[in-house]
């Protein structure tokens, strides 16, 4: 009887008697707690500007550095999660907040991540004088910015997309707004959120590596971590150490994947609204352990108890008045007022920005930076086209072989997560050795890490093409170029666009680290807006950093509006298969 409905709280003894899984779970849980405590304690070490933290290239130090890196990633992830829940809930619940929050988010999304680092680092240092915490915060904030916007958009869209009938059921059975948020809206949003978290984290590794070595006004601070380890290795031209770092990163990503995302992805399957069962993922070993180990069950019960209490407390609160999304007359006047305030604020900001630019840098400099942006734009477009020419045929070839595709997809996902900047030193030593032109040969580095998104999506797109179409094409004798034009290219177009958008965004971001690359004391430069921002950051010229970041941001926005969004719409309207 006790087992009849899942998790009864009677019968504690038999349910909490340890089993085999506890043998693995207990040390893991305790060990993780101790390690995290140590790592967080390390973060607030005293530190003074100009000091140099020793980074040793001894591979035995790598686990420790890796832990610090993981810690930063985890903190950024938690921060992103909290931010996205609050921000998305506000935007989805209030029409007025939505008007401001969503466009702001759209802009934030196009600001280069490393630009955030350049802009915010001085502020964070001022916040925690005499401590390393300021630098840690700046690095974590940069990682946060690489994850938060995506996750927030995903949540916001999920909140808006909660099926109407489920909403009605929640209202009919009189769930309080608090209850309905945790019982309906969050669970509904979970599958997309977790998927997005995984993609964001895989993008985040790149920025962890890039943000650990922070340059402020000529000083470079190396936060202990894999990124700094590799920075030192580059400085000392130590290829062995680069190899160790690459290996350590590999292990880290595998651990995140195995211990966090595989289990999470399998677990959130149950939250999908699709009506049919089946298509189940094989439960990953870690999820099985979590679900079987009594220790963790005990923890889960405790959490459930807290949730229940909070739900009871919320019940005693007076329920909030329903916010009407349909405009009433008084509402309309308030709306107008709100729009007016936003417009005035925007205009004032625009005037102030214009004045600031004129005073601090001058319009001549602006024109120069716009030109640099155009050069980088050409690079990005050429690279996307090249990557498409290479990866579309290969992706289609793989996609037409489903068994091969299933085996190769995790590998590509892994490649996408792997921070490409770890490979930069190898590329640079090659460019130096063969005396290649940096303007041309540095460019591929921009797309090194993000080209995998194109391949990944093309494979997925090809896999999802109904085999009937191929039979029909074969039956009618459609071959070669006609086969590409009439069947494959239209069929994979939506998937390709998704991949290309991601690759393009990633390339803009990477330009800041890819257009200026060092190897020991050799420094290679390509002309472009990325190099401009990198150089000004190193020089600590704040107005010019801001200018560079703003112009880069404008380019990304324009490219999104004029190209990607239109292609997206075309794909949605005409070529979607269902």
């Amino acid at each position: 009887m006790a087992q009849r409905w899942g998790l009864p709280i009677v019968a504690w003894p038999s349910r909490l008697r340890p089993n085999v899984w506890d043998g693995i779970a207990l040390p893991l849980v305790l060990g993780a707690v101790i390690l995290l405590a140590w790592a967080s304690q390390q973060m607030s070490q005293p530190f003074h500007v100009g000091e140099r933290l020793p980074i040793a290239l001894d591979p035995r130090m790598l686990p420790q550095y890796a832990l610090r890196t993981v810690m930063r990633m985890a903190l950024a992830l938690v921060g992103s999660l909290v931010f996205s829940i609050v921000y998305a809930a506000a935007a989805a619940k209030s029409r007025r907040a939505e008007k401001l929050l969503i466009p702001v988010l759209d802009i934030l999304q196009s600001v280069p991540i490393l630009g955030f680092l350049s802009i915010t680092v001085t502020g964070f240092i001022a916040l925690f004088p005499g401590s390393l915490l300021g630098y840690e915060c700046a690095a974590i904030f940069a990682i946060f910015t690489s994850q938060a916007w995506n996750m927030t958009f995903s949540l916001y869209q999920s909140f808006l997309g909660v099926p109407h009938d489920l909403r009605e059921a929640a209202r009919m059975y009189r769930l309080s707004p608090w209850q309905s948020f945790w019982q309906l809206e969050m669970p509904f949003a979970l599958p997309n959120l977790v998927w997005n978290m995984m993609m964001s984290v895989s993008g985040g590794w790149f920025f962890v590596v890039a943000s650990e070595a922070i340059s402020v006004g000529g000083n470079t601070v190396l936060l202990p971590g894999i990124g700094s380890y590799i920075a030192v290795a580059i400085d000392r031209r130590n290829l062995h150490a680069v190899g160790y770092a690459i290996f350590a990163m590999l292990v880290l990503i595998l651990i995140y994947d195995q211990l966090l995302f595989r289990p999470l992805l399998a677990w959130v399957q149950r939250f999908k609204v699709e009506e049919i069962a089946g298509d189940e993922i094989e439960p990953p070993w870690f999820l099985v352990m979590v679900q079987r180990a009594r220790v963790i069950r005990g923890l889960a019960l405790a959490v459930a108890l807290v949730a229940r209490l909070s739900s009871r407390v919320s019940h005693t609160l007076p329920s909030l008045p329903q916010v009407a999304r349909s405009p009433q007359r008084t509402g309309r006047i308030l709306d107008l007022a709100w729009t007016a305030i936003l417009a005035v604020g925007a205009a004032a900001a625009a005037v102030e920005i214009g004045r600031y630019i004129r005073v601090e840098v001058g319009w001549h400099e602006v024109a120069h930076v716009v030109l640099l942006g155009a050069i980088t734009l050409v690079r990005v477009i050429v690279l996307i086209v090249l990557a498409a020419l290479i990866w579309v045929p290969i992706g289609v070839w793989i996609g037409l072989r489903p068994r091969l595709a299933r085996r190769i997809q995790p590998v590509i996902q892994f490649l996408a997560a792997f921070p490409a900047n770890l490979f930069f030193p190898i590329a640079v030593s090659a460019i130096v050795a063969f005396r290649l032109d940096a303007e041309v040969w540095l460019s591929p580095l921009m797309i090194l890490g993000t080209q995998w998104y194109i391949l990944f999506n093309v494979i997925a797109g090809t896999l999802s093409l109904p085999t009937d179409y191929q039979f029909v094409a074969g039956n009618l004798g459609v071959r070669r170029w006609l086969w590409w034009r009439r069947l494959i290219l239209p069929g994979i177009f939506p998937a390709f666009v998704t991949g290309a958008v991601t690759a393009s965004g990633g390339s803009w971001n990477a330009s800041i680290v890819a257009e200026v690359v060092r190897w020991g004391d050799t420094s290679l430069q390509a002309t472009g807006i990325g190099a401009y921002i990198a150089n000004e950051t190193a020089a600590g010229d704040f107005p010019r950093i801001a200018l560079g970041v703003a112009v880069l941001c404008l380019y990304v926005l324009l490219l999104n509006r004029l190209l990607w969004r239109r292609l997206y719409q075309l794909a949605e309207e005409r070529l979607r298969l269902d």
Partner: protein
Amino acid sequence: MPAEITLAVEAGTSLIAANAVCKTYATGDAAGRLVLDHVDFALKEGEIVAILGKSGSGKSTFLRVLAGLTEPSDGFATYRGRPVTAPVQGMAMVFQSFALFPWLTVLGNVELGLEAQGVPMDDRHRRAIAAIDLIGLDGFESAYPKELSGGMRQRVGFARALVVNPDVLLLDEPFSQLDVLTAETLRGDIEDLWRDRRIPTKGIILVSHNIEDAVVLADRIIVFGSDPGCIRADIPVTLPRPRDQANPIFRSLVDQVYALLTTVPGAEAAKRRAEPIGLGYRVPDASIQQLTGLLDALSQPPYEGRADLPKLAESEHLSTDSLMVLVETLQLLGFAQVGGGDIEMLPPGRAFAAADLQHRKQIYADHLRRAVPLAAHIRRVLDERPGHSAPEGRFLAELEDYLSEEEARQVFETVINWGRYAELFAYDIDSGVLSLENP
């Protein structure tokens, strides 16, 4: 203050009442579209009332007004004499789409309403298990909705509603997504529970477009007319329970309701003949294939041009709803007429059925231009324009004076399809341009 007087009088007997309820949805022009027009209604204690109507007649909206899920534009609904502005304790609803939370088990779903009321855990378990047993789901407590068939899912929907011991049960097309056999079993079980008084529920409102469901379950059938939604008929059903579907009285009741649902009432028909339908008429969304199929079937034996509607639905495997859409279109085009639950082909309909493909298109085109102002209007504009083409936006904008954006789109697409078949005009979806040339 007549409204307050009615309130006082009805408080003793009515569980739920609606007083001159109106509902308007926003459209392009300022007035909006009226979907409910002064609907008065009362549910007495101990009664099951079925509300029948075509899809789009506003019956679901009406149910949501009664439930407090939708605010009426005018008039008000009451529950036990008190006005309803938000969902109240004492009412529970069963949804057409089940509306189960996929991340909760059967037990979790059933407990949801109790949890919201703050019922203590032990009590909650006990009551939920009892409701699950009552509805015949024991053994499935820990299953997720995904694992269940449609019929089982709707049983969870019923258990979730019954567990809060509702005074009034609101059923929104609860059987329409189930296959016939499953629907009949579930319907029978619900009727048993009601007849044997095993549930404390004092009144049930069933919204449906299935006439048999209504005649089997209801003590009273209310037929909704559409555009705007209003009560057209209120028919008491006094047959003893359980009702025998083979009983001639049962059959004649079904026929009677069928007739009511498919015929345009006399006064309106007369008005329609004198003054044809307007540009913004919501033409039924009928497919050409089904129309021609139905005309073919009608013209052949055993019907030979005349058929009993329930029988026709059965022999052509059409749901009441889709049959009504087709029948309305045939009437609209002047291909057939309906009277007393029978459909009869008119000469144009017979001519259409006898003709070959090219001829059919001609006949169809003639009648389309005569009967559907929008089709005629589009053709006229294209004829007059020098380039014989026009953007869709202009017609959609005209439609949006009468209809919501979504409805305007729907009507436009239906007429486009009819016009394409009739070769009255051509349409290019990429550019959104209508023209006279046929590629």
